[in-house]
């Protein structure tokens, strides 16, 4: 894989997660998850439905509060931070791409407004400049500039997902969380979206945590891979290594379950 040849640019981890645990009563959401994410690195998390991938991601993004463990972003203790600080982080340094674009977009607001929202949230007050940035970003995600005043509800599923990505990346975040970004898209649209994501990740030097159940997606995008089952990490390592030489029985099952066309 071409991406594998990239060397992580810095020696300090951007995101450091230790023993993260989230319980729902007596049930385990995710347990004892630890990993480091370096700048420019893409970490894939795979596992079957209910294995705790999404719980882990929403704990990382601050949507849910974990019961135990620590998250350090760029040296700052995220869980000990005030909510103001955490929300500011998630407006500026972080981005979250939802599986369903309707969760991540404002469906009643035009495409330009959607892209501009984060800019305005961090204080942009010049209409012309906001609009120029929006046009620029729509171009980068291959949405025609003349669609800027259309609402997302007039867009196809693939366009909505690309719009969501543009909306998230416009403030140049350093860390992007993606929850099944290609779910619900047909394969040809998926392929183009993956291509786009790969280009953006490389050009912008993003660190990404991507949750998916699609092994092809992580094969293309992720440098490293974590395999989860029943809330716990059962195997982790370099993506190609895990996929080509799975050690844990569950990973072996997962890899062998992929349909070959």
């Amino acid at each position, binding site marked *: 894989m071409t991406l594998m040849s990239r060397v992580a640019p810095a020696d300090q981890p951007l995101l450091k997660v230790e023993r993260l645990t989230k319980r729902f009563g007596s049930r385990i959401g995710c347990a004892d998850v630890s990993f480091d994410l370096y700048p420019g690195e893409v970490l894939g998390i795979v596992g079957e439905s209910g294995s705790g991938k999404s719980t882990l991601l929403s704990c990382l993004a601050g949507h849910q509060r974990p019961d135990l463990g620590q998250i350090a972003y760029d040296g700052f203790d995220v869980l000990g931070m005030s909510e103001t600080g955490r929300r500011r982080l998630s407006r500026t340094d972080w981005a979250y791409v939802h599986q369903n674009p309707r969760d991540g977009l404002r469906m009643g607001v035009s495409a330009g407004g959607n892209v501009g929202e984060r800019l305005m*949230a961090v204080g942009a007050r010049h209409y012309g400049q906001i609009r120029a940035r929006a046009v620029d970003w729509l171009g980068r995600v291959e949405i025609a500039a003349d669609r800027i005043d259309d609402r997302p509800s007039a867009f196809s599923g693939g366009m909505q997902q690309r719009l969501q990505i543009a909306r998230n990346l416009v403030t140049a975040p350093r860390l992007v969380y993606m929850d099944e970004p290609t779910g619900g898209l047909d394969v040809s649209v998926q392929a183009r979206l993956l291509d786009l994501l790969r280009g953006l990740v490389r050009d912008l030097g993003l660190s990404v945590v991507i949750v998916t159940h699609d092994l092809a997606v992580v094969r293309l995008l992720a440098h490293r891979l974590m395999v989860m089952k029943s809330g716990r990490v059962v195997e982790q390592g370099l993506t190609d290594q895990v996929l080509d030489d799975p050690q844990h029985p569950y990973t072996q099952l997962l890899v062998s379950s992929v349909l070959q066309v």
Partner: protein
Amino acid sequence: MKAGSPALAAVDPVTQRDQRAPERLGPQPEQKDHRPQNHDGNGDDQQRCGDIVGRQGETPEWAGTMTDYNFAYLDEATKRMIRRAILKGMAVPGYQVPFASREMPMPYGWGTGGVQVTAACLVPEDRLKVIDQGADDTTNAVSIRRFFQRTAGVAVTEATTEATVIQTRHRIPETPLTEGQILVYQVPIPEPLRFLEPRETETRKMHELEEYGLMHVKLYEDIARHGRIATSYAYPVRVEGRYVMDPSPIPKFDNPKMSGNPAIQLFGAGREQRIYALPPWTDVVSLDFDDHPFETSKAPHDCDLCGARHSYLDEVITDDQGGRMFVCSDTDFCAGRRAQGKKGQLWAPEPEAAE
């Protein structure tokens, strides 16, 4: 009761009720209390159609039947609760204070919030003015004014300069307000972020954390769609650099009048159960973009009755042939100018069209 006139003392139900009064809570006793006066009041109402200002200065004969606390329709506990909310609102300008809005004897949307705030502010010495879209003589204004004449017996007036409390629906009077006056707004939807963010928990959080980017998204959408900020009423403002506030559906023409105003401005939303306030001399800034600054707007005409050039105008359709005229929406302001001899182009001394 002791101060009651002979006519009052003769009414049995009143004396009976008066004995029971200590055990009863809620606003009903007072309402009953004033039934007898309704005969009085009705007679007045007839008269008042001609001259509303006529009662000014009289001390109503039933004033003595009320305690200081239960003055003006509200019971003691309610009044205290609303006054606390008002004080809190004054202490945190622009912050929406929740309060336990009571049912008022009028439907939601008719100014129940404003009525409760007014009732909580009124003292017997007050002189009340009520306007609806600037006019003193429309249904909403007349019925609320009559309500307070019956239940509080306060003096009323149409003159902005003479009023101590002004309840308004959707306008700020043209005549500048002065220190010591209270302007009470009726508010339908107090939350400026509501149409972009339907969740109350989320909008509260956004106020708490000063996340007001969304407000500009609304203005952005306006410009994207119409080429300019097309929001012309309920135009969002920022108060003292902190809370973003909905100024109630006043035209944006009135927005600059809110800032640095010497009067106390109170906002009451009955259905949504919120009170907020602007203390005197509060800094109020209308939101805008650097390259699309805030602008007031009004119909590009002079008033056809009084010739005023800079007052906010209503368009009145006069026939079904496309005939129309523009008149000041502030009736007191317009009448005052005409009294000074100023004339618009359609003003006639026998004014069927005017009144």
